[in-house]
């Protein structure tokens, strides 16, 4: 029966080519626009650490002497608090992070000096965030404490400097220090660059920079502070630091601490630890208030920062409304088409076809339009994503259609056209046979 309906649908679609083309076009354009933007939303709002993010937390205390318990704490930590909490080793894993622009000087493989971003962190960073290695591995906890001059580099930089060869053991000259490469990452592109997300509430929706690529060079935290001393940027300061760019023990927030807590009781314990730490610092006179400590989980933190750029959200709404209009259009055209064949329907009904089979026949026709529209819509989605990749935004290289979204494109197209066909098909199967036959 289904094959017969397909035949009928084909026949009917060929009968009025202009109308068919209009419907396919409407579905294709609607699907193309909405799938392009939804793919971007899907890529940008996903979990950067699936299966792990629920264990990752971002503790915050507020050393700002101008802060208040009723206000949100600063988005980053001051050096003292961050290092104290890291030293306490109360979490399953813990990583301090700070980013800075460092000068990569000519040396082993570098011809002319370049400035590049450097991440300075502690060894747990790699295990905690499941960072994949191609060659070598992370440095040891001993390297953290001993301030060893070692580094891990990204695949990007390894390709550029060493043509993708195993560069473990080679050295790089960072400003005036030689660092030995101990590990090379596999391509690693968390979306967003979650560990660097902060200050989203001040960005007014302009958050596309949260989707930047990871830093090319990763060094141990304390080594990084020594190597690149004088080149660190504060998130904010409540007094001027004594020396610009040197922020250790300055009245500035500029360091982040990430912790991994493997179960609920540990989370509660750590929350208490953070609150106790703030209270203790207040008792010591370093903090002026201790009531606004926070500890958000990774996803809560991303949410708090509103990582999805405002323009992307606006575009998604627009595309969905656009799809709705295209569907309305298709409903109208299908209605026109089906009712025009009232005579034919009357004849089929008179010859014994049930209402259900008439309904089924027209739904098959609607679904076919959806399938063809979906195929064109898929091409338009690819075109749309290509256009986004040409845009000068940080997330441009991420805009690609993955398999779930590819499947969803067709499901959405067929679903949409079936929905659009529902009303026309229902009307068609209510055609009274006798009345139609009389006017034939």
């Amino acid at each position, binding site marked *: 029966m289904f094959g017969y309906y397909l035949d009928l649908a084909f026949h009917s679609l060929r009968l009025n080519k202009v*109308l068919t083309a*209009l419907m396919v076009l409407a579905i294709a354009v609607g699907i193309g626009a909405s799938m392009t933007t939804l793919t971007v939303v899907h890529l940008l709002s996903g979990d950067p650490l699936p299966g792990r993010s629920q264990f990752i937390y971002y503790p915050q205390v507020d050393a700002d002497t101008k802060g208040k318990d009723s206000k949100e704490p600063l988005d980053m930590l001051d050096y003292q608090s961050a290092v104290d909490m890291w030293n306490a080793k109360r979490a399953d894993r813990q990583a301090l992070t700070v980013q800075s622009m460092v000068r990569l000087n000519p040396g082993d493989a570098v011809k002319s000096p370049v400035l590049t971003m450097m991440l300075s962190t502690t060894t747990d960073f790699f295990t905690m965030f499941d960072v994949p290695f191609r060659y070598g591995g992370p440095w040891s906890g001993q390297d953290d404490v001993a301030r060893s001059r070692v580094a891990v580099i990204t695949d990007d930089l390894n390709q550029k400097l060493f043509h993708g060869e195993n560069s473990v053991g080679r050295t790089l000259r960072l400003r005036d220090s030689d660092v030995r490469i101990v590990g090379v990452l596999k391509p690693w592109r968390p979306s967003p660059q979650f560990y660097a997300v902060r200050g989203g509430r001040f960005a007014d929706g302009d958050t596309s920079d949260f989707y930047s690529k990871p830093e090319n060079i990763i060094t141990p935290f304390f080594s990084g502070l020594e190597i690149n001393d004088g080149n660190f940027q504060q998130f904010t300061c409540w007094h001027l630091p004594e020396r610009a760019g040197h922020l250790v023990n300055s009245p500035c927030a500029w360091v982040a601490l990430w912790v991994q807590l493997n179960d609920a009781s540990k989370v509660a314990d750590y929350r208490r630890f953070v609150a106790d730490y703030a209270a203790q610092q207040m008792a010591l006179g370093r903090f002026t208030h201790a009531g606004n400590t926070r500890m958000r989980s990774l996803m809560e933190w991303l949410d708090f920062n509103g990582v999805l750029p405002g*323009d992307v959200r606006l575009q998604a709404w627009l595309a969905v*409304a656009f799809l709705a*209009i295209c569907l309305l259009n298709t409903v109208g*055209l299908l*209605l026109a088409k089906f009712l025009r064949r009232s005579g034919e329907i009357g004849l089929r009904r008179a010859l014994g076809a049930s209402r259900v089979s008439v309904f089924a026949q027209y739904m098959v026709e609607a679904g076919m339009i959806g399938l063809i529209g979906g195929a064109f819509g898929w091409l338009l989605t690819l075109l749309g994503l290509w256009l986004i990749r040409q*845009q000068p935004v940080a997330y441009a290289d991420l805009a690609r259609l993955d398999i779930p979204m590819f499947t969803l494109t067709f499901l959405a197209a067929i679903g949409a056209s079936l929905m659009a066909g529902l009303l026309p098909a229902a009307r068609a199967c209510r055609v009274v046979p006798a009345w139609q036959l009389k006017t034939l």
Partner: protein
Amino acid sequence: MEILPILSTLRRHKITAFLVVIEIALTCAIVCNAVFIINQRLQRMDMDSGVDEHRLLHIQVADIGAVSDQKSRTLTDLAALRQIPGVSEVASVAQVPFGNSSSNTGIKLDPKQKLSTLNATMYSGENMVPTFGMQLVAGRDLQSDDYKDFDDVVRGAAAKDAKALPHVVLITQGMANRLWPGQQALGKQFYLLDYPMTVVGVVKELVRPSIWDDSTKSYSMIFPMRMARGEYVIRTKTPEDRDRVLAAAVAKLKEINQHRVVLKKHTFDDMRHDFFQNDRAMAGLLIGVCVALLIVTALGIVGLGSFWVAQRRRQIGVRRALGATRSNILHYFQTENFLLATIGIAVGMVLAYGINLLLMVHYELPRLPGIYFPVGAVSLWIIGQLAVLGPAMRAAAVPPVVATRSV
């Protein structure tokens, strides 16, 4: 006009009529708001920066040797840059309009205030007003005895030594109006980190390097501090000289120290172009969506119009046989479309207003100006009429003889 018969016909085609109305309403609502956003973005891209953009160049070099000789290096650089033919002014600065990286601070009108009165950005550098080509509307420019070295200021601030800090400041007209509405700003004081600053001059406009809220875009202050960070602004004699001067300046800076890295080198026109790239992309996208929506809606009207004409062929034949002229038939379909469009537009306007309210809450957009409603209505009427013209002409071409067939 024969409105009553049209209405009674429409009543028999409720669903199709309803679909057309809804489609027109949604299109109207979305296009009105989209055009409004496009306009907002275009206006933003047209923002006055307060500086002579066409003649300005920006160069930033990094890491010019040891910290101790940065000051003398800067002087060497500035002298070398000044000698390039075609250069009219140069300055060593800390930040530039549209530069996207800024240093901001809260200021207070009263030192005892708990919260800042407003947050403004801090420009500094010698010779800024003439180099940027800013317009001084009141008071004087900063003078050489106002200036302090930036490093001394930082050291002084850490040691809480008020003498090491600058005492005077230039602010923008926009900031002056916000701080002292309706009053003369000259001679007034505000407090920065508990230190008083006296306003000695007001410039017409100077936008902030990064603008996250358009209402505070011109809250800028210029402090008399000499900068030695390797960030230079060059004003050329004519806009045509720009590219040549830029190349010459970069070559010169490289010649002075081969090992320095040039971080940025661009004209201010390029900086403006980059600064507003998101707005431009969004406006382009919205224009595309609007055009597509209007086309889809028009095609929908064509499709349904054709269907109705085909369905009513015999009815049209009968009317023609009874004496209706071709133009009567043409007008019938045009009036029908006009009626549907009018209802659609009416609903669409309410929707447009609702969407605008939502956008005002979530995207801090201003209220939709009244002018959008009549303009939107007229354009949709025109599109509706154009779309229905084809089917209506085909209807008018139906010969009266159809009435006598197959009865």
